[in-house]
């Protein structure tokens, strides 16, 4: 059968997604109803918990640039796997040509990887 976007199994998968939303939502709503509530609240109950220290300002601070480097590496390699997916499907028909092309592609990619390693993008110290 020719795969198609109208394949009815997509609708089944979407239905499961809806069920997977309803079941935990039901559990959370049930917990809302069953949960105890304090008759009288103390103000400190709603404080941010940071091990007993008074929280010093909001938590929304600047963070370390190494996370940006990880995000860049991720974009690089994730796009590469996106190219690999259709290649993996058609490898049998295309044969050695596709094999050589992927070899070249990965070789170029590994050059970039080597550069990232040399630059210390991977070492988090």
């Amino acid at each position, binding site marked *: 059968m020719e795969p198609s976007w109208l394949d009815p199994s997509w609708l089944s998968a979407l239905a*499961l997604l809806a069920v997977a939303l309803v079941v935990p939502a039901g559990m959370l709503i049930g917990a809302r109803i069953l949960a105890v509530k304090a008759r009288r609240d103390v103000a400190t109950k709603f404080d941010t918990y940071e091990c007993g220290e008074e929280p010093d300002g909001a938590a*929304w601070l600047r963070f370390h640039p190494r996370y940006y480097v990880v995000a860049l590496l991720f974009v690089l*390699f994730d796009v590469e796997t996106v190219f690999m997916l259709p290649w993996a499907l058609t490898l049998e028909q295309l044969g*050695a040509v596709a094999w050589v092309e992927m070899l070249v592609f990965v070789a170029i990619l590994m050059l970039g990887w080597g550069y990232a390693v040399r630059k210390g993008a991977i070492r988090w110290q």
Partner: protein
Amino acid sequence: MIVLFDSPWLHGALLGLVVSVSLLTVTAAGLLYERKFAGRLQNRPGPTEVGPWGLLQPVADGLKLFQKEQIVPAAAQRFLFLLAPLLVVVAALAGAAVIPWSAELMVADLHMGVLWALAMASLMPLPVWIAGWSSNNKYALLGAMRTVAQGISYEVPLLLTALVPIILTGSFRMGDIVAAQADLRWFALWPPGPGAVAFVLFLLTALAESNRIPFDIPEAESELVAGVTVEYTGMNFGMFYLAEYVHSLVASAIAAALFLGGWDMGPLGSGLHWMLLKTLLLWAVIFWIRWTLLRFRSDQLMELCWRWLVPLGLGLVLFTATWKVFA
């Protein structure tokens, strides 16, 4: 394939309900099993008090979580804070749509099956990030940041190892992949060598994706109190816990289908029971790893992924392709 109703919506909804509720029930039972198992590993009996042999312990835990007061900190962003525990379970359950329980029993045999599973697995960092950000707590934010970094990093080797069975089968469809492993030609065994490595690597990265020890950096209770879950109480907290277990259970099932032949057991016949047995065995291995190993440090984890696992995954893909084209 068994079709419960002509309408794919009804089929998906009913079978999806059965699968979702079963997964959650098995998870509750798994919690007791894990505590018993951990007890035996540490030469103690585990829970014994609630019910005969402690069998009612998960029920008691569940009831306790349901009763606890749900506190939203004053500094938190209320809407996102309450949304995250819901989404985290949705992300964990959604991958179950394409698990091939048996040749006849599947919610949806998508022609993009493996991609669906991987896409849903990679949704996980988003609700965790929502939780960490909306908590407005420094521990929660640090935990969430590490989770996102870890989640997106380990997604790359996960995809690369999942490519090994895809290349060997030439299809994304879960049913095709299991069928291609008929007569015990499991991908974990058959191209001797790389299949086994890919299987171990897949299980490892799936562990990292579901944030289990040795990859539970985001929680890291000894450094970050409880990571993203620090501000959550009651069932809101329970949802994160549940999601972690469901996620690892779904990952075990996907690994069993991709590498261990799924429902097929060669001369011993085939059927739902083999799939369940393989899935639960892999799940037990995950518990075993949890109670044996220590936690990695965050930077060691990232270096392991980018320096070793990504090139190894690429090597596996190329080796498998060579096998496919020339052998």
